[in-house]
């Protein structure tokens, strides 16, 4: 009896956040880039997605 040949299972493409998790930030020589990699990594679990966008003519850095 013929068997149905299933295509080989391909891996899901790696998400940008997953790629970032592989980076050792302690080895990044730029403090800015190290901080931002950490921030993007944490975006997935951050509860503050709520009102993160703000008006171009105002600055609330924190």
């Amino acid at each position, binding site marked *: 009896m013929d068997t149905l040949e299933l295509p080989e299972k391909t891996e899901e493409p790696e998400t940008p956040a997953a790629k970032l998790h592989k980076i050792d930030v302690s080895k990044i020589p730029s403090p800015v*880039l190290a901080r931002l990699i950490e921030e993007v990594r944490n975006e997935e679990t951050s509860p503050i997605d709520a*009102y993160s966008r703000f*008006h171009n003519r105002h600055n609330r850095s924190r």
Partner: protein
Amino acid sequence: MIEIDTVLIKVASRCNINCTYCYVYNMGDTGWADMPSHISEETILAVARALDELTCIQTRPFAVVLHGGEPLLLGPRKLDHVLTTLRSAAPSQCSFGLQTNGILITNEILDICSTNRTTVSVSIDGPKHIHDRVRVGHDAKGTFDKVLGGLNRLREHRNSAFLFSGLLAVIDPQSDPREVYDFFKTLKPPGIDFLYRDGNHARLPEGKEFLRSTEYGQWLARLVDIYLFDQDPLPIRFIDDLIRLILGGKGTKDGAGLTDFGILVIDADGSITKNDTLKSSFDGADRFVHKWSVHTNCLKEILNSDEFADSHALQRPTSKICLSCPELRVCGGGMTLHRWRDVNGYDNTSIYCADQLLVIGHLRNQVAAIQAQ
């Protein structure tokens, strides 16, 4: 219903200075002249009712920003009244802030902001010789010394760690980004944001020779090189947003990325307007056809309306060039106002398209090079 991130309240329609590039007074819009100088008691109460309603109809918190004109023209007593009244109408997790030119900052004002948990952001363009070229008084004299006085009071206040939310600077592409960055670091703000000068396809901003010229992009690329290799960096919001987006994250402010931004602007007479930066397109560009007002309309009706939805959708780029651009997710088509052309509205690329592509490309190269190390 469209959800709101920021309620921007124009508590004073006039300004004590007259910056040459100001989108409120010096780019053709005359709406300010029809407004009361200061927000009235009746309008303060109507805005408070609107904040209370917003709290009921959306679950997410929002930011409240006092804007102008110059919001500190209210004076300490009225500022205290506005903040106390609006604070009591909004949930405690809502952030309150104000954007000021800094000149009228006094210890009394700062105490009022501190009591009402309201942060202060100051507009300053750089060291004196750069700032005083454009941020001038009605007598055309530079305002740097007065701004620095107010800024120093803010920095020295006992609660400055909370109060001081950052600086806002408009780029002068003829300036030296190293000099500007080093100057701002001496002020020790928690962060700074750099803005492009306002302009559109009909009226290119000063410092931009022609549509595809890249004076602003080159200035930003030089700033990127200084910033990325600084071992004690002063956070720069605009560059941080572009890097976050390049890394696959989200931007925080309108003008980069594709996440929608929900703004509700309330003018000094209580009327509801579109994003006020659209004033730079043509006289009345920020006005809705419906004459909505916090005095006569409920927010639910406005936020569910087609006209508000159409205005909200303006932030999304529609130009075929943008929609097929490989950097669309990072650039986001830039600010809506920079896409304006008299013949076809906002269906264009930003006048800063070439600048954005230059700085994003430069950032990609630098980020890849640092990661490769």
